């Protein structure tokens, strides 16, 4: 049998070889032996967690989980035709000595989709208004729906540092009664 003389193109030949190799790999995987491995998983605290910011307590309320790994912020206001800024409602704290990469990622949104202009979550390079905004997760309401933001890129938070997550809101002119719940996460790697 002369395989080279078979009327197959090169790509077909390659595909055949690939499938053959997969079959061989599968068959050979059928014959195995085991190495024993024991894993011990213990609970540990993370290096990065939330802490309440200076703006907590009057115009908004931050409730943190026992390990500060989740937070609920209630009482946020959006005013018609006026931007309302909470510069420092909640902070991301890197309690370790090594830098960590963090990003903001959308999870879910529910509630009204007509009365808002936007809700923004912004990571600041510090905890004051003069500190630069590094990353923004911008939820824009089109009047009939929300445009959901893509994940931000990662940014490195130095060790032993706190950064504010600033929240900006605005409702449309003549906005009626409405509320929106937005769930996001801060990914840490």
């Amino acid at each position: 049998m002369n395989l080279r003389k078979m009327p197959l193109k090169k790509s077909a030949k390659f595909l055949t070889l690939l499938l053959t190799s997969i079959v061989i790999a599968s068959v050979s995987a059928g014959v195995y032996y085991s190495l024993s491995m024991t894993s011990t998983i213990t609970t540990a605290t993370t290096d990065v967690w939330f802490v309440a910011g200076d703006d907590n307590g009057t115009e908004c309320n931050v409730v943190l989980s026992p390990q500060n790994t989740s937070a609920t912020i209630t009482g946020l206001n959006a005013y018609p035709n006026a931007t309302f800024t909470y510069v420092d409602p909640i902070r991301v704290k890197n309690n370790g000595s090594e830098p960590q990469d963090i990003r903001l990622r959308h999870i879910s949104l529910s509630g009204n989709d007509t009365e808002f202009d936007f809700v923004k979550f912004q990571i600041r390079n510090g905890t004051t208004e003069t500190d630069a905004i590094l990353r923004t997760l911008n939820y824009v309401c089109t009047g009939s729906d929300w445009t959901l933001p893509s994940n931000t890129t990662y940014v490195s938070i130095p060790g032993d540092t706190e950064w504010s997550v600033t929240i900006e809101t605005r409702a449309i002119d003549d906005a009626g009664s409405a509320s929106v719940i937005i769930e996001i996460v801060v990914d840490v790697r």
Partner: protein
Amino acid sequence: MVKYRREFRGVHKSILGALALLILLGFLLQNVAGSAYYSLFMESNTTVSSPPVELQEGTAGNSTIYANSTSALTSVNLTYPASETVSADAKARANSYGTQRAVLRTTDANNTLHVFLLDSSGDLQWYNSTDDGQTWDKSFTSNLSASSFSVEKDSSNNIHLVYEASGNVEYRKQAYNATAWGTATTLDSSGDAHQPSIVVAAYNQSWIYVVFDVHAKKSSEVHFARSTDSGSTWAETSEDITDLTPPNTLEYTGGDTAGVFPSIVSNNTLGTYGHIYATWFSGNLYLYLRRGVLDSAGGVTWDADDNVTTLSSAMSVASTTVNTNMTHSAVDNNGKYKVVYCESGTAKYRDWNETSLSSPISLATVSNYPSLTYDSNNYLYVFYETNASNNNYYIRYQRSADTTPTSFSNPINITDSNQDNEYVTTKIGGDNNRIEFVWTCGNAIPYEVKYNYRGPGAGEDDFNYVLKMVEKDGFDWKVRLKAYDNSSITRLNNCSIYIYNGSNSTQIVILNGDYENKTGPWYDLAASATEYIWMHVETSSAGTSYVYVYLEILVPNKTTYARYIIAFEIT
């Protein structure tokens, strides 16, 4: 068989290649999947709420409040009154030089405006207006020949006139509504007396003081005369206040000159009975100031030689032809002696509080024949003529940025026609809430004498108030204004925006077309309170400017704040 082996080796190589690819793919997948991370979960609940503060319309300007009372457009308009002709038969300057025009207001029922001028025949004419300068009439027909003069009103609305007639200095006292000239009293009959200046003492309106130039060939002096009975009798009419203890002298003896152009002003806040200040051009570069201390009888003790103040040592050299570098304009205002004078075509301002002499502040070049006055808030105005951007002269003024003053605004044109507008003279003080002035217009005899004014509603104004802020949530806040954008603000000589409720908080300041302050200090807005926004605006020319401002409303002791947008339109 060999052939078969070759084929098999080919297949074997392909299988190895595929395996290598698989391993590579596996590594790649493992690397991607191996980016371990954890996530911190955050939930936010945002609710639409009514604005905590409402913007509402003010009582000045024209404000439009937009939806939800969280943004506004505020428009203010300034007007520029047209110049009115007082007389079309005037001399630009008389042969012997000195003041040729004067304007003042009396406090009679009509707040009558008075303008004195020399007509083309050299006669002193008296015009009056009882409609704020819209129309003018001669008080009576006059053929009183004069060369230069000075007028001053007293608190009884008498007008005291001194004038030069053929080298003599004469005095007349006139009721504000006189229908003929009063009786003349000769103060100097030497034939060498010129350029008289008169003042009524602030302390006692019956005390009247006069200085005048006496110059003969190669000698220039300042003489003084006084009356303590409202002009009925006069004393010391030949006292030479430039002739100090020998060998000191402030007299100029170096050559012929057009005169020493003396002035006299009165101060009521210094000394028990007030002080008077005589100022004159020495005849050779210097501008001198000498203080006189008044006593209980209206007598004068002049400061000793060593206390004569040199205001300038860079005036013109003596000349038989009058020029701007010989003249000055002095007032007493807000407890200080204040003067403007001209050095090489640039007017300069100084003041003296009897302890220190301020550093000169230069006004714009060219600023010839400056005339100084002040408004009811003690801001200073320097009017002058210039040819800085025109072939012929035109009239400008500069307003002080504050009452100190630390600086003056950019020049603001009164006239921009190419008709030779010169020799502006201001009314002293801002009574009737107006800065009023007269000048000559034209390029040949007879000239016109024009009248105009500035002040509230005329090229500048206070707009109090344009907006108000009403707290609606029942909480305390802090508020401030923050400018974030603008257009065409170079024409804004002064645009100051304030928050007010019992005390002023200066928020935005634009001076001479540039921001002096873009962000105001935080101002308390108490629960349920109302605060007001007002503006002061001065413009240098017609046009429309916009200043875009955030009204920031801050939660006290937090960094949580709302931003409203207010657009200010200045037309």
